[in-house]
């Protein structure tokens, strides 16, 4: 049973559509990432769920209740804002206690819930400091537990780690995942960082230009992207144009490969891990020119160009002999069925 259901959610500003009619359902316990480039409508989508933006047309259901007409303060959702929105005139403890206080919880219950949240966010040491004294990461944790203390049915996070530096972001990603496991809530978070979406979420909704292009597990999004946008937005991908006939394509080297997708002109999605130099004496699927070779630590990344000018990348394990830039080599594609996407007409 889906906990959060968006039914034809839509937002237009004048003539411009920020979010095209969109359906989305989120199950209880899901950690859903809404991923897309800036300006794709993902924040508008999240703010409509939180009640901060009035949708042009729709129904929003949370836990079976239609919340479409409710103001934010009466929705069973809570939000972690980009920029946090902490109350600067209050201490850490007062910020966290704010929601329960407004809701009129008894004092003893507030105190014990706040202590639990301070522990959850590892904020015990800072409890009585003004929030203006905290670092970015600490503020982020205050914002998180301040929203969690009300036990929202859905926790909304708007670019929660956007303002933090890379190292801090990685450690907070771990923390967020851990907190999600620990309390078992339903999280919906918006991000433009595909690595972050992959690392944290069990489901990813990729948005482009006001539309949800694909909702799936990170593995499926990466392995079987629904369209060229998803393929190239999530990780590196080269799109090799092919013509599919009866579920097969003939590769330039002559091999017939099994592919997914309907017949017609399509493109094979090639990840850097899919492309490998052909072993000596074995037939190549494709002949390419090596344009560059860069050591990446655990592997070498080759930049390759086909005769048609398509740029490919190949990750080659350290120790395997490397072709020199300028050399012409044969490459092989995986034996498993190749994933194709429809090319825009």
């Amino acid at each position: 049973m889906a906990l959060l259901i968006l039914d034809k959610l839509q937002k237009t500003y004048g003539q411009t559509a920020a979010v095209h009619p969109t359906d989305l359902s989120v199950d209880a316990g899901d950690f859903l990432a809404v991923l897309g480039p800036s300006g794709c409508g993902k924040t508008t989508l999240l703010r409509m769920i939180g009640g901060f933006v009035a949708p042009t047309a729709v129904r929003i259901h949370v836990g079976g209740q239609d919340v479409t007409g409710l103001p934010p303060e009466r929705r069973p959702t809570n939000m972690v804002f980009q920029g946090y929105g902490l109350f600067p005139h209050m201490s850490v403890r007062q910020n966290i206690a704010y929601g329960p206080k407004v809701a009129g919880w008894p004092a003893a219950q507030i105190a014990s819930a706040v202590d639990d949240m301070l522990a959850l966010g590892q904020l015990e040491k800072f409890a009585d400091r003004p929030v203006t004294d905290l670092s970015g990461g600490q503020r982020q944790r205050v914002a998180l537990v301040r929203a969690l203390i009300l036990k929202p049915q859905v926790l909304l996070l708007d670019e929660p780690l956007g303002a933090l530096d890379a190292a801090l972001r990685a450690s907070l990603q771990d923390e967020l995942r851990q907190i999600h496991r620990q309390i078992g809530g339903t999280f919906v978070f918006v991000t433009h960082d595909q690595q972050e979406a992959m690392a944290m979420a069990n489901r990813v909704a990729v948005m482009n230009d006001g539309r949800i292009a694909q909702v799936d597990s990170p593995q499926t999004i990466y392995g079987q992207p629904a369209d060229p946008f998803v393929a190239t937005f999530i990780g590196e991908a080269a799109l090799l144009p092919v013509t599919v006939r009866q579920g097969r394509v003939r590769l330039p080297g002559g091999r017939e490969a099994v592919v997914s997708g309907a017949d017609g002109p399509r493109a094979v999605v090639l990840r850097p891990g899919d492309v490998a130099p052909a072993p000596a004496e074995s037939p190549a699927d494709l002949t390419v020119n090596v344009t560059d070779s860069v050591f990446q630590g655990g592997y070498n990344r080759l930049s390759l160009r086909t005769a048609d000018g398509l740029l490919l990348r190949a990750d080659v394990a350290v120790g395997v002999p490397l072709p020199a830039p300028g050399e012409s080599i044969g490459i092989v594609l995986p034996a498993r069925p190749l994933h194709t996407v429809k090319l825009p007409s």
Partner: protein
Amino acid sequence: MSGTVSQGILNDRIWPLILPAAAVFLALGVGPLLWMFVISFWRVDVFRIAPDLTLRNYIDAVSLHGRALASTMALGIAVAAICTVLSIAVATVIRFAKPRTGQILLFLVLVTLFGGYLTKIYAWKTILGNDGVINSGLLTAGIISTPIEQLLYSPAAVIAAMVGFLLPFAVLPVAGALRAVEMIEIEAARDLGTGPAKLFRLVILPRIRRGVIAAFLLCFCLAVGDYITPILVGGGRTALYGQMIAPQFGTLFNWPLGAAMGFTLVVAALFTGAVCAALLDRVLR
């Protein structure tokens, strides 16, 4: 180690910049005040002031005009309170209206400062007077048969005129404080369950506390020091302290008493203002 680099570089060189202003302020402000302070212990000897060291003037300042002092403080509190409440309302609209509308409103508030002080008081006379706008309107409508004289020359008229004059001074600090309150704080408060009324009490008022106190004190100080408005629209019926100080330096020729009354007013205003500010600080927290 404290302070930023730029402070370190400039620290010793910027001080001379305040010298001209300090000279003016000391020579024309502090100097005469000190002189008045000295005079407040002197006495009047047959139309001449004579050096002395007496507390007589201060005793008179309180015992002869104590009632006026108390009603001046009360009037100051009333004017400041009305201005503060109205300014919070106006500043809230300025802050949360569309940016363009807010700018226009703020401009309109500021533009009223260009109108002269006396002009505004005379404007109130044409509104509240016997043949003023209100009375002639009511007469024409047949609601009254003779003008209501109490409209003008009453404490209410003094308060109305002072509020009209002082409101822009109150709006500015409150609007400034409100500008620092970010939309995201308000959204967070809404998200955490705060309805509009509680939002004002729990988030907005505590955040603009300092601006509100500044607005109150500014209006209070200007109101208790005003002696023109009560003369022009209060008539003889409103006895305010400032009104009684002015003639001591003119027709009554009693500079020592006038000086003592002046310092009494300053001390009373400082004390009352401090109490009000402390109260506001507690209430708004």
